[in-house]
């Protein structure tokens, strides 16, 4: 029975039929336009599905606990769908219907309802109400629904007239039947007036002839009697069928108006129905599913009175909704106020209480509504920054705004996203690319527009860019053997290769070599500072043989070569001659070089090398001093 109190809400398909479902499904056909004439069969205007004869698949069910409306196998939140939002905002922005035309229309409908009121309905009042229907249908707001009711009433009256003629025909047939029966009885009785013969055989023959004669005389009357009876039965069947068909059409119209939430028209149509069909049978002859819906709502088989009652209940509910809205608005409880107005709008979009509500009063709910819808959208797209801002704004404008659900969603997303980002940071530091990517992806899925996400990922990727550029530079410099540049930019390369052990090893080797070169240069400079240019040159030359491509070393070597020119020339001559196999000459040059620079390691090495060559088994090579 939870649907009872909101029973009018059960039947709001036209408003909701084009709403966007929560989950993507097959597109729902748009509802048929409002019919101005009674449908030939139940539900043409009420059901947008492919089963116009039944409401089985098109009747919506609203669960007030979740504010979800289930219809045609799909679910909508009445407070969260684009069409409802659009229509509700349109309503909130629309001016109130207080012009003369609207007032006249409302007055006309009320007159019709009053004239058809059960307490004072007469044939004359029904006729007067019927005459007012075309007038009401001339107003745009009526959407020619009154004309449709009028058509239905007229069709019913015509059907009733036909039924009356069938009744008259049956009366004639009944008289014919009676006449045939009387004639048959007369024929039967007159045959007994003649005298039968006395002899047995003649008497039997006479009796047989008398029977044949009586049967022959009776046959036309029997045939006419049977024909009359058949015609009577046929007319009775026609009458009953015609009345049932007319009732079904009329009931279908009432149901359709109810589904369109045209509750005033429902009341008018139901009262006309009762005046047309005065047999007291108001049971709805609709599909079993539709019957079940109403039966579940009210607990009894549905009747026209059921719809009448529900329509009145809807009118009252809409009135109370508007009153509640005004009251809550005064208390600055915009959330509740807006919900009440939305509910009243859902029920009675076309009712006077809602259409006459001043725009300025409605617009107070507009800001809250817009922000609420923005909040829903922000939560849908996981824009928790905007959602938080909207929650704060809503708390300001609506004292009763319940922030628990959105804030729970926002804070949960923020926390989980922050956790993933922290993991991503750690993964970035430790060089775990797989974890980095998965954590960033998880953080993005939870909160795509998280500012921290952009910040963190930006930093990670910036550093990654710097790192990648440094690594590319390192590779290029290694390929060029430009170890000097690597050495001068070693801090950057040390940082960049922190996550790459192979490159780290390469860099270490380069830096070690550069340390050797730099050490040699420093030592050479120090020795040269004391005027020992040959010694300085030898310091550089030793390292130069290992690292001939170092520019700085080359430059220092060139400078020292100039300053120790004779020694260098002597030594190089010795080396050249040694290479040519001129052992004696070479040794003489080495000896001369050693004379020029007694501490020469190159000279000593050359001499030792050549002495070893000349005296392989030399037992001593010590100098004689």
């Amino acid at each position, binding site marked *: 029975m939870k649907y009872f109190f909101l029973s009018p809400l059960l039947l709001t398909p036209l408003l909701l039929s084009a709403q966007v479902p929560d989950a993507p499904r097959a597109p729902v056909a748009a509802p048929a336009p409002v019919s101005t004439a009674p449908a030939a069969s139940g539900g043409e205007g009420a059901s947008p599905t492919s089963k116009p004869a039944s409401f089985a698949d098109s009747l919506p069910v609203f669960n007030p606990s979740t504010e979800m409306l289930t219809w045609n196998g799909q679910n909508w939140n009445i407070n969260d769908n684009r069409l409802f939002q659009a229509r509700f905002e349109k309503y909130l922005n629309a001016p109130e219907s207080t012009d003369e035309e609207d007032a006249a229309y409302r007055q006309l409908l009320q007159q019709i309802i009053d004239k058809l009121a059960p307490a004072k309905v007469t044939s004359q009042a029904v006729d007067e109400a019927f005459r007012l229907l075309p007038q009401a249908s001339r107003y745009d707001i009526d959407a020619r629904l009154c004309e449709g009711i009028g058509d239905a009433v007229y069709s019913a009256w015509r059907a009733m007239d036909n039924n009356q003629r069938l009744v008259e025909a049956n009366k004639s047939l009944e008289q014919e039947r009676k006449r045939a029966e009387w004639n048959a009885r007369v024929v039967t009785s007159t045959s007994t007036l003649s005298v039968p013969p006395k002899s047995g055989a003649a008497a039997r023959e006479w009796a047989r002839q008398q029977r044949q004669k009586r049967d022959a005389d009776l046959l036309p009357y029997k045939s006419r009697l049977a024909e009359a009876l058949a015609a009577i039965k046929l007319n009775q069947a026609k009458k009953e069928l015609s009345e049932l068909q007319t009732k079904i059409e009329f009931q279908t119209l009432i149901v359709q108006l109810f589904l369109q939430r045209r509750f005033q028209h429902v009341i008018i149509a139901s009262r006309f129905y009762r005046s047309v069909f005065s047999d007291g049978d108001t049971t709805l002859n609709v599909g079993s599913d539709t019957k079940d819906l109403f039966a579940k709502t009210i607990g009894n088989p549905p009747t026209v009175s059921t719809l009448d009652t529900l329509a009145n209940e809807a009118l009252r509910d809409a009135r109370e909704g508007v009153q509640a809205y005004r009251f809550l608005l005064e208390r600055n409880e915009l959330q509740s106020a807006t919900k009440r107005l939305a509910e009243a709008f859902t029920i009675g979009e076309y009712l006077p209480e809602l259409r006459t509500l001043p725009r300025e009063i409605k617009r107070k709910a507009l800001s809250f509504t817009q922000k609420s819808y923005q909040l829903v959208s922000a939560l849908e797209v996981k824009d928790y920054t905007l959602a938080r801002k909207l929650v704060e704004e809503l708390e300001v404008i609506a004292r009763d705004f319940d922030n628990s659900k959105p804030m729970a969603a926002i804070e949960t997303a923020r926390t989980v996203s922050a956790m993933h980002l922290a993991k991503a940071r750690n993964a970035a530091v430790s060089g775990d690319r797989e974890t980095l990517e998965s954590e960033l992806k998880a953080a993005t899925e939870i909160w795509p527009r998280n500012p921290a996400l952009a910040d963190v990922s930006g930093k990670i990727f910036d550093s990654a860019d710097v790192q990648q550029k440094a690594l590319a530079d390192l590779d290029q410099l290694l390929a060029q053997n430009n170890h000097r540049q690597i050495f001068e930019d070693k801090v950057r390369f040390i940082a960049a290769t922190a996550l790459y052990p192979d490159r780290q090893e390469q860099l270490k080797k380069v830096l070690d070599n550069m340390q050797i070169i730099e050490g040699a240069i420093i030592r050479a400079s120090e020795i040269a500072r004391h005027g020992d240019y040959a010694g300085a040159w030898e310091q550089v030359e030793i390292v130069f043989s290992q690292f001939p491509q170092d520019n700085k070393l080359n430059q220092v070597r060139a400078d020292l070569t100039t300053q120790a020119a004779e020694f260098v020339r002597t030594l190089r001559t010795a080396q050249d001659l040694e290479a040519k196999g001129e052992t*004696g000459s070479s040794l*003489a040059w080495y000896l001369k070089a050693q004379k020029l620079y007694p501490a020469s390691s190159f000279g000593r090495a050359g001499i030792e090398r050549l002495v070893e060559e000349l005296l392989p088994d030399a*037992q001593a090579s010590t100098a004689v001093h």
Partner: protein
Amino acid sequence: MARRAHSSTHPAWFAAALVVVLLFAGGGYLIYSQLSDPFRTFSPLPVEAYLQNANSLRGNRYRVDVTVANQLGWTPQKGRLYSMDLDGSDDVLPLLIPAELNSINLQKGQRFTIEVEVIDRGILEVKRLRKA
């Protein structure tokens, strides 16, 4: 008989004779010394040529005047290898004193006139030597 007048030798003649004697003595000594020098038949080592291409002088014998500098090495079989400063030059020559001359003591600073032969690899092998 007439006594001839007594005549005395003029002192200039004595001086001239002394000069002549000295000249003969000097010349003799010079000739003697020239003739007595055992290396007089050897030309001095062409140092420039040796330093540029010692192998081109292989088989030739030369005379060098040197001062002992350092012993570079020795083997009982091949002898001793010395570095010797060439007199009158900054050049230093490597000289191999073969084992046959092991009896000769060499000390740093001693000056020698040496007959050398350019052997394999352009090494100067000492053939004879004498103190200068």
